[in-house]
């Protein structure tokens, strides 16, 4: 099954409580997949020369103070938050691409969950409520958020296998469905230089988008490419610095519903996740068509 949600704030009152709204939405879908959960929150954009690193340690007891000292020496650290022995967020004094390159080179044992000016990405094994509390997501403000609650089918339940998956600077993907041609596509993408951390099919979709964007596609072109190159079932929500986009497979195998008011735009696997939003009863509610790219907030310029 899996459940996905996305919310984009059109008013400050929604943005101030984006974490609470997105958390309540995700909890509504907990019984679509209680294995793992995650959320990307777009908030507090950094100025040029500053960026955010969401980091994960495959080792159970990472020495975060030592890692922080290394980052401070190499890049300069503006702030940091350690959420668990494995998860931390650092705001560093470097542009996102430079920060990413530096961490890959100097701290290769760490996994970069996301990197960008605006994105913060939190995910772990466990039910949505536990993951939300672990990272304190409820109290976060921001412009938009995407979330996922997972029922694993194609690969193991691990923190790395949970969603969202980063697809590039300030980009992430959540996926409800399963892909049939992910092994073959993963090999093809590896030849193009895309690296993978798991055997997960959704990570391949994320890698595919990363590759298409790297080749110069717009996000809309990259999503249109999915319709041709991905075999399987999917409803995707893709977060960008400015908004989010939604795409369903050409026969709409997996559910999706969208709603909009003057204050917000949101999508979810089921309406009950939208019902918790203020004014949902008066919202315009509709189902996105198969094979059509929808987007908000300049996600696709």
């Amino acid at each position: 099954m899996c459940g996905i949600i996305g919310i984009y704030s059109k008013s400050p009152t929604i943005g101030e409580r984006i974490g609470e709204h997105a958390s309540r939405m995700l909890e509504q879908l907990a019984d679509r997949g209680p294995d793992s959960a995650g959320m990307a929150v777009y908030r507090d954009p950094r100025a040029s020369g500053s960026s955010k690193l969401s980091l994960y340690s495959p080792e159970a007891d990472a020495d975060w103070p030592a890692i922080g000292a290394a980052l401070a020496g190499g890049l300069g650290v503006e702030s940091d938050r350690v959420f668990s022995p494995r998860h931390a967020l650092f705001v560093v004094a470097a542009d996102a691409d430079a920060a990413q390159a530096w961490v890959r080179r100097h701290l290769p044992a760490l996994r970069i969950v996301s990197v960008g000016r605006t994105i913060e990405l939190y995910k772990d094994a466990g039910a949505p409520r536990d993951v939300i509390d672990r990272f304190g997501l409820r109290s976060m403000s921001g412009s938009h958020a995407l979330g996922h609650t997972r029922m694993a089918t194609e690969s193991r339940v691990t923190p790395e296998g949970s969603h969202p998956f980063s697809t590039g600077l300030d980009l992430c993907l959540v996926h409800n469905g399963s892909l049939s041609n992910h092994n073959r596509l993963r090999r093809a993408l590896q030849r193009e230089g895309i690296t993978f951390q798991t055997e997960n099919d959704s990570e391949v979709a994320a890698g595919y988008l990363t590759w298409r964007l790297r080749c110069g596609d717009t996000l809309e072109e990259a999503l249109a490419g999915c319709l041709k190159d991905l075999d399987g079932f999917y409803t995707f929500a893709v977060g960008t610095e400015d908004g989010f986009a939604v795409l369903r497979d050409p026969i709409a195998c997996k559910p999706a519903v969208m709603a909009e008011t003057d204050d917000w735009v949101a999508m979810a696997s089921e309406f009950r996740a939208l019902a918790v939003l203020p004014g949902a009863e008066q919202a315009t509610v509709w189902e996105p068509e198969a094979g059509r790219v929808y987007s908000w907030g300049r996600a696709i310029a």
Partner: protein
Amino acid sequence: MSSVIGQEQVVDLATGTVRALNAALHEAAVPGRWVVRNPGGAHNVAVGIDGAHDVVVDGHAGYYCAGMNQHATVRVRGSAGVGVAENMMSGTVVVEGNASQSAGATARGGLLRIDGDASARCAISLKGADVVVRGSVGHLSAFMAQRGRLLVCGDAGDALGDSLYEAHLYVAGTVAGLGADCIEKEVCEEHLAEIEELLAAASITDMDPRAFRRYGSARELYAFKVDDAGSYR
């Protein structure tokens, strides 16, 4: 969770459960008027009613709302999720907003009226009910529909009527594509009468019955042909 106001039984799903609501609907000795408040997209609201109740769902409904309905009138004052009125036997189901996939799936009798759009697979495997959509329907609508009638005032998505049996399909707008064995057919007087009947049943007064085109089965796919007898030995 529920209270009687005048002649109306009010059930609030903010405090009560769908299971209790449906049990009350099933056990009620006499048909009555019901209002379901705060449905909040809950699944299985007002499912399996067998009585001439009048039920108003005051908001958006989740999956399978009014499924298996017999005799009741169920009105959703919002949108409906997957499979609204699936396997309806009789009665009337009205969705004032949009409907998700598989609206009216396998419905055998009664009327499903959708005032907005219906998504993919509307009236899939229809077995005798009438489905009237004020807006448009998505792809693969009326897939393998056997009996009954689908009338669409807007457009139809791709593969309309794929593998169709004997259901009657009427569409006023454009059809993105016809499915296997579905063809356009002439609209004769008897069909105009059928269109008028469906429009009247759905209280639609601003559509010209002559605006609709008729689609049906070419009967090439499911009909037995004597030349193929050898395949069945």
